[in-house]
């Protein structure tokens, strides 16, 4: 399937789902599970089991079904959420804060995506480099992965901002940043980040712990040549948020259902199918703190990274 066709298909499905959802609001008791993904077809399969499971679990509350809406980008999702057409979504820490901040959504639970509750971002430089700490980044270039990445952009970028560094977006990693500031580029892939650092294309790269440990992303040969210069505070791996106006009973019931899933043998397979999730639980204090900090940093961040 060509990318054009896939895109069209995604749009068609999204519109269909929207239509369904719209009609469902009139009819009572349909919960809409949203997701931002560029491959609705693939992602639908991951969401469908838990959607059905939750639908069953929420039946006592009058919810008759859980419908799935997948959109390709966050701004669209933001709009849908604002319009009250998405009830529940699983997001990264930054995506969750974004929705809470911009669309009035509320944090519901922490999801152990890939079996992990929390993770951190790692700043690394080449062994040959003279960069020892983040303070040495002035006049250097750092590579993030993607604008939407929490661990490989939002969190570390916030951290750099807190460090007082002036960040300057660059079109190409080969450019030199303006004097006194630090340049940044998006590598587009975690592997690219590792290669760029290894080959001296950029000075510092940022990756999540999980990527760091993935030999396909950062080969052991690279690890040997890399030096970690800074580590971020831990942050939740994934965060469940619900629409601000969602019925509190439903929200509670949903939380309870999710929290109980890892104890239900029948639900384990459903959990696993959803991005290797181990369990759902409550956000820890640290998580809340981190999320708060992100939330605080967000306005300035938006200024700095338009």
């Amino acid at each position, binding site marked *: 399937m060509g990318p054009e066709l896939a895109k069209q298909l995604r749009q068609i499905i999204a519109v269909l789902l929207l239509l369904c959802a719209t009609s469902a609001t009139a009819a009572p008791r349909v919960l809409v599970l949203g997701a931002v993904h560029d491959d609705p077809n693939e992602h639908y399969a991951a969401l469908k089991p838990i959607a059905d499971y939750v639908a069953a679990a929420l039946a006592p509350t009058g919810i008759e079904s859980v419908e799935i809406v997948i959109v390709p980008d966050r701004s669209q999702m933001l709009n849908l959420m604002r319009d009250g057409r998405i009830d529940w979504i699983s997001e990264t820490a930054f995506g969750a804060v974004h929705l809470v901040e911009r669309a009035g959504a509320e944090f519901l639970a922490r999801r152990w995506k890939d079996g992990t509750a929390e993770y951190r971002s790692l700043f690394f430089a080449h062994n040959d480099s003279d960069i020892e700490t983040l303070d040495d980044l002035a006049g250097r270039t750092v590579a993030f992965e993607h604008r939407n990445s929490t661990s490989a952009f939002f969190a570390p970028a916030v951290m750099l901002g807190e460090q007082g560094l002036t960040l300057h977006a660059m079109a*190409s*990693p080969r450019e030199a940043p303006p004097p006194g500031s630090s340049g940044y580029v998006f590598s587009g892939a975690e592997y690219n980040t590792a290669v760029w650092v290894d080959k001296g294309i950029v000075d510092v790269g940022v990756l999540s712990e999980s990527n760091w440990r993935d030999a396909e992303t950062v080969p052991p*040969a690279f690890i040997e040549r890399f030096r970690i210069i800074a580590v971020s505070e831990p942050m939740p791996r994934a965060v469940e948020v619900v629409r601000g106006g969602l019925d509190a009973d439903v929200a509670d019931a949903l939380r309870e259902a999710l929290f109980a899933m890892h104890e239900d043998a029948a639900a384990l397979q459903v959990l696993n199918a959803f991005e290797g999730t181990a369990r759902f639980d409550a956000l820890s204090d640290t998580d809340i703190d981190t999320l708060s900090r992100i939330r605080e940093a967000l306005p300035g961040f938006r200024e700095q990274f338009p």
Partner: protein
Amino acid sequence: MSGLRLSLTQRYALLINGTILVVIVLLGALFLNKIKDTSAEIREQSGGELASRIESQLVENGQRLADGLAERAVNPLYALDMRSLRDMLVEASASDGIEYAVVTDTEGRILHDGSLTIESFGQQARWLDVGDTEAPLARVSAPVSLGGEQLGAVHIGVSLTPALVQGERMKTQLGDLMAARTRDMMTSMAIYVLVLLLAGLLLAAVISRRFATPIRQLADYAREVGRGRRDAPPAMERGDEIGMLAASLDAMSRDLRLSAGEVDYLAYHDSLTRLPNRAQFKRLLREEVERIRVGGRGFGVLFIDLDQFKQVNDTLGHEAGDEFLTIVANRLSERLQTAGLDYDGELTLARLGGDEFTVLARGVTEPARGEQLAAAVIETLAEPIEVQAQAFSIGASIGITFCPRDGDDLNVLLRNADRAMYRAKEAGRNTFCVYDRSMDGTATRQLSLEADLRDVLNANDLTLAYQPIVRVTDGAVVAVEALCRWHHPVLGYVQPSRFVQIAEQSGQIEHLDQFVVSQLLHDLSQLHDEGFAHLAGSANIASLHLRKPAILEHIAERLDYYQLDGEHLRIEVREKNVMRHLEHASVGARRLRELGVPIWIDDFGTRIATLKHIDVLPVSGIKIHSEFIDGISAGQNQRVVAQAITEMCHNIGLPVTAEGVEHQEQLEYLQEIGADFAQGYLFARPMPYDDLLGYLRRQRKGDDGRLILLSDYIR
């Protein structure tokens, strides 16, 4: 041909099959070689062509891949998206035959090589090390550009190994195919060879049956002819060469049959008169003597010696003498047979030689009957005989003896008859005399002759006659031969052969030889003084006596006395004595050589043995027997003999003198065959010294006065 002996059949088989084999091997080698060359060429070409075709296909495919990659690489390269580049390159590298795939920047430095860690990053792509450097590789690249601006390039290495493998595989397959074809051909060829060889053997067998068998039969026949077989050869009814060979063998066998009889006849008959010769006469005599010993009857022997026969010879020459003798022989045998004298063929007339005839009269034991026969003989010869328009009346002296009355040994009988004959001569010739014992003892004629000879020798009453020897090319006299003459007061002219024989028997031969040498050298010395210093003198010396130093020292002393060089003297030895004595006389031969006196062989050509050994004999020249010179005008064979002797002698460096030359025709022939010297009536008869001197003076023209040395004739 040494060692291996092969029959004709085997040779043919070898020849035919050998030829077949050689041709086949040559052609086979040629074909095989050609096929090998061609197949190798086809193999190389086809394999090479396939390889290069596959190669260009591979390169084309590689280029297409590179182009596709370059297009796909635009975005990743622009964004330095290593992951996408890697995915792309991994995918490309996974393709068959792609050894490597890399992306470079505009400087040709590697940005990504498809590996996770990109260890080649920053290296020049063109130095890219590909594991197996031996492996053939095509390097293909395509530029990566965006909006006309080049971002970098994609380079891939296309392995050409498949092409080569395919090419090699094709070569192998073609090679196998060719080898199989060649094997097939070899097999076929082997069969052809076998068939041809069998055909060759068959052909050889046919040839054998057709030719070899008859040839072998003829060869067997020829061998048996050699052993005495005389019948006709096996019948060969064919017109080819084998038929001709059979006919020739038949003719040869016939000739052999004839000549065997002829040889037998010649051995026992006188060639001139066809009468039994001395050998036959002795044989017959011996038979009769044997017969008497076993109780047979007796017989008589008449010894007939013609009176004054020498006169005929001297007057008319040798040939006339022969003719005369023939007439005498015919008349005698006719008379003896037809006049009622011969009872039951009991009389046998024989010619002992010269003018001596004998009659074996079987059953004649009475002197009266013997005398009757003798009288008849004398009467028969009394009638004049006409030769060359001249009539000669000659008489005969006849001696008669009887066996067993007078003895039973054939030599005794012959001697008795001879003595009786001399008695008849003494009695006044033309009469006969019967032997009686009174003729033995000192009063015999024989003893009388011996005594007479001794007398003449002591008195030097013998004389020498000289016959000039001339050079064939110009007739110049180069030498003279001394011939001894004895004129007996009673007997008249005594044949040299006769008194030499008497001298030998009576021990006076040495004396005689000394006389000849002395007289010759004396006369020669005088001739030299007369201005004929070039002349050499020839003396006949019985070689028997060369063993005795006395004659040798006499020669040395006389040469010295007359101050003559050894070369001025020639010693002639008769051929029959050469073999018998000359080798034993090597002392004499050596002494003569020291003196510089050459030895010549007299009467040469009648003895095969001498011919065979001529080159080892210590001789300096050859005198060809007059018999062969006579024959020059008569028959081809004699001519050939003279020529053969001359050539043979010349081959070993011996000069040749021809004796008895009487006709111009003979001289011309001698000139033609290159004979060196000649003597005979054509030039001069033997003559006394005084006559010789006159002759030489007349002949002086063309004479350069130089001694003709033997060395002048040695080529």
